[in-house]
């Protein structure tokens, strides 16, 4: 990133402002019980696709249960569709949504980060203070394994992942737009498992589309740690026929980055970049690791396939991208389904009722140009308390009508989380 200091980046991105508000707010500096509990309470950590859905369905299923959601961001920004910001097809504002709908349903939102979980006393720590819970939903999304790429930890404020939609998405779009014609855009794909399996390949389509139309001498070099395109393989291969500016290199795991020479290093090669989008290897969100909800690999959380209760801690239900062991992708639609199933399980358990079987589903659209999309759909059943895939289907080809349905899916599922 040329000439952009960490302070400039924080200022431009609003991260510094958010931090300031957080510290000035009451909860982080309060000691003791921040909000004494009077009745039954469920605390939800994280207001993304899983957490928002869980909070909404908890209130829908039993309004007598108090629901408290901890989310440091004041607005919701959708990761799905955010690759379209990189091609200029969408603005980040068009993907930014209010939590007002959840507040209107009685969800109490605290714009703070959960700093620790105390399962024995059933408390969530927020700085010096805490809130008590009867049941806890942990939906922290992913965090990055900076240490897996040499030089990345020191450069993590300037080497962009743009893998959590927000300021980094906007900054990466700006860098692509500012890149000279003839410049090289390098995108690195992390090894599985990572958030949104088709996401990197959709991003490649969007950047390649933009460069083809605006900077025809530029190219996209893809360094994929995996042996092949991870998701919708044949459909992406077909889409890339329209983008001769893509140079795709499989089995090229990035092991180092040097911002002074503007190079990324793989096990076999050094690759120069003008703009770099390094998507680092991933693990469950920090709070899940801190609370030891993760397995022996310290990466992901194993859960019940029926209730999403952690196999390691009673009364803590983990949902979304931080889970492992179900045959489902780490997608927004799956997190949405897990949020519903966890919410209805918790309401059933708190009311002494049997937990119904609620198998997930996954509908996943990817934009391959400015007008056309492809999709993959997975449906599941539950057999012997385990989630089993019934079927996976792909669209036969890319089309405008799939893209039209993608738009309707976006509007509908946003309402299913936040209205």
């Amino acid at each position, binding site marked *: 990133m040329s000439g952009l200091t960490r302070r400039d980046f924080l200022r431009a991105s609003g991260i510094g402002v958010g931090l300031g508000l957080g510290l000035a707010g009451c909860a982080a500096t309060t000691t003791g019980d921040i909000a004494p509990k009077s*009745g*039954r309470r469920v605390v939800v950590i994280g207001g993304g696709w899983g957490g928002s859905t869980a909070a909404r*369905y908890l209130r*829908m*299923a*039993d*309004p*007598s*249960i108090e629901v408290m959601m901890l989310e440091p961001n004041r607005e919701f920004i959708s990761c799905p569709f955010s690759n379209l910001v990189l091609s200029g097809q969408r603005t980040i504002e068009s993907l930014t949504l209010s939590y007002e709908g959840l507040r209107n349903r009685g969800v109490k939102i605290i714009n703070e980060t959960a700093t620790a979980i105390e399962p024995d006393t059933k408390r969530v720590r927020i700085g010096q203070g805490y809130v008590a819970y009867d049941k806890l939903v942990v939906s922290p999304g992913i965090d990055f394994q900076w240490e897996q790429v040499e030089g990345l930890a020191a450069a993590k404020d300037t080497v962009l992942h743009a893998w959590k939609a927000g300021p980094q998405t906007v900054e990466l779009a700006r860098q692509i737009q500012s890149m000279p014609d003839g410049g090289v855009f390098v995108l690195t794909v992390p090894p599985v498992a990572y958030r949104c399996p088709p996401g990197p390949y959709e991003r490649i389509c969007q950047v390649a589309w933009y460069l083809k139309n605006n900077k025809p001498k530029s190219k996209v070099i893809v360094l994929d740690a995996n042996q092949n395109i991870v998701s919708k393989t044949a459909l992406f291969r077909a889409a890339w026929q329209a983008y001769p500016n893509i140079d795709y290199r499989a089995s090229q795991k990035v092991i180092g980055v040097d911002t002074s020479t503007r190079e990324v290093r793989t096990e076999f090669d050094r690759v120069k970049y003008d703009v770099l989008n390094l998507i680092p290897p991933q693990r469950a969100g920090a709070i899940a690791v801190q609370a030891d909800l993760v397995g022996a690999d310290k990466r992901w959380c194993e859960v019940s396939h029926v209730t999403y209760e952690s196999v390691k801690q009673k009364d803590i239900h983990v949902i979304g991208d931080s889970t492992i062991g179900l045959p489902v992708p780490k997608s927004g*639609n799956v997190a*949405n*389904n897990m949020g*519903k*199933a966890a919410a*209805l399980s918790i*309401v*059933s358990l708190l*009311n002494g*009722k049997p937990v*119904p*079987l*609620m*198998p*997930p*589903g996954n*509908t996943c659209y990817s934009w391959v140009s400015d007008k056309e999309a492809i*999709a993959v*759909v*997975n*449906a*599941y*059943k539950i057999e012997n308390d385990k989630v089993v895939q*019934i*079927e*996976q*289907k*792909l*669209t*036969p080809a890319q089309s405008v*009508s799939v893209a*039209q*349905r993608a*738009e*309707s*899916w976006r*509007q*509908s*599922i946003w*309402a*299913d989380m936040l209205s």
Partner: protein
Amino acid sequence: MTTTRLAAALAAAVFALAAGPGAASAAGPLDDPAFPKVITCAACHGANGNSRTDMMPILAGLDPAYFKRQIENYATGKRPSPEMEPYAKQVQFLGLDEIAAYFAAQKRQPTPFRPAVEAVAKGKATAAQCVICHGPDGKGDAARLIPSLAGQPPGYLAQQMLLFKQDTRDPGDPLLAAKKALMRIIPDGQFPELAAYYSSLR
């Protein structure tokens, strides 16, 4: 206050407590055993099957026999849809009869899309050819598995007309031969108007 009235007041207070926090869950959606079976549908088809978007059909108020036929056709691939084929099999796994009855019992809220008045008027003129099956009010004929189109989203309706015309929805079905013949003589450009008209019906 007499003893009787005091007792009544106490009883009322106790009842109010019992109905307060903790027991209010008695009337929640979980008391309908079908509700947990349709939560996956809501991501696309909206709360209680009342889709608010242009391309996803409203399931609320659909005739249960028609709903069941469509799920069966999606599951076998007779009505080809990469999105719906897996989910149709999930619906069969969870209980087709129960889910069909659930959506049939929901009150349909017409699509929020408000097409242009001229499009509706033009569509109404074209629709003169459709009333023999779909009825003058677009409500269809449940006995013949002809669905109500009234208030469905216009984008969905227009897309289905195109699929019928191309014979890609239920290809070769003799019961749909007349319908498809009609679709073939209507120019593609008139489908959005026809869809606008049916979406405007209440």
